[in-house]
C-alpha cells in the first residue's frame, strides 16, 4: 500500500491527482480514459473530504491510500470530518427544470458513482472513508 497525507486545503487536490495518475499509469493496465475517470473520482472525494474538515474546523490531515489486487486497484480517501449520511443527499430537480440552476453543488457523489466500478462510503462521527475501486490488471513488465 502507498499512502499520501495532505493538509485539508484545496491547493493540494492537484497533488492527489498526480499521485493516483502516476501510480495508475506505471503500475496498472488501464486505458487513458479510465485513468481520467479515476483522477476525477478521487479528486471529487478529496474535495468532499476537505469540505468536511472545513465544516468541523479540524487541523487533521486527509489521507489517500493506494492498494492493489490482481484484478483491481483501490483508492481510499479518509477524512476526520463529522461524517454524513450518503442516503440523505438531496436529489436535484431534473436538468430540464429551470430550478436546476439554483443548485451549484451536490454533483460530486453522482459523478463518483458513475466513474468507478465500485464505491463504498463508511462514515461515522470520527470521519469518513470513501473507497473507490477500478477493475484492472497489473501493467505488463
Amino acid at each position, binding site marked *: 500500500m502507498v499512502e499520501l497525507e495532505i493538509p485539508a486545503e484545496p491547493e493540494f*487536490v492537484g497533488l492527489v491527482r498526480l499521485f493516483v495518475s502516476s501510480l495508475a499509469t506505471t503500475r496498472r493496465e488501464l486505458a487513458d480514459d479510465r485513468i481520467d475517470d479515476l*483522477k476525477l473520482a478521487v*479528486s471529487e472525494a478529496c474535495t468532499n473530504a476537505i469540505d468536511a474538515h472545513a465544516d468541523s474546523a479540524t487541523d487533521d490531515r486527509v489521507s489517500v491510500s493506494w492498494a492493489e489486487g490482481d484484478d483491481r486497484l483501490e483508492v481510499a480517501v479518509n477524512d476526520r470530518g463529522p461524517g454524513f449520511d450518503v442516503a440523505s443527499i438531496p436529489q436535484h430537480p431534473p*436538468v430540464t427544470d429551470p430550478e436546476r440552476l439554483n443548485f*451549484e453543488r451536490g*454533483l460530486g457523489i453522482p*459523478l463518483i458513482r458513475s466513474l468507478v466500478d465500485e464505491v463504498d462510503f463508511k462514515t461515522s462521527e470520527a470521519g469518513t472513508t470513501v473507497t473507490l475501486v477500478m477493475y484492472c490488471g497489473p501493467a505488463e513488465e
Partner: protein
Amino acid sequence: MDLGLDVTEQNGHTVLAVKGEVDVYTAPRLRERLVELVTEGKRKIVVDLEGVDFLDSTGLGVLVGGLKRLRSNDGEMSLVSTQSRILKVFEITGLTKVFSIHDSVEAATAG
C-alpha cells in the same frame, strides 16, 4: 497551479478562454471572472474550455452559477469543448441539456 483566463471580444460576444485545471482550488477564480464580466455589462458570454485539462464538479457548479446569473440579467452563456474527457462530465451530470455546447468559438459566436 495556474488557471488562464483570457477575455476577447469576437463577433459581438465576450469570449472567456479558460486554460489549465478547474477544480476546488482554481474554480473560485473562474467564478470571480464571470461575475466581473456580468457586472461590466457583458450579456453574451462564450466560455471556451478547449484549453482545460481537467474539470470537476466545482467547476461545473461555477458554470451553472454563471448561466443562472446571466439568464437573470437577460443574457446567455454558451460553451466550447470538443474534448471527450470534458464533455463526459457534462454528459454524466445531464448538463448537456442545460448548456449550449459548441465545437468551436466561431460556431458559438455565430448566433
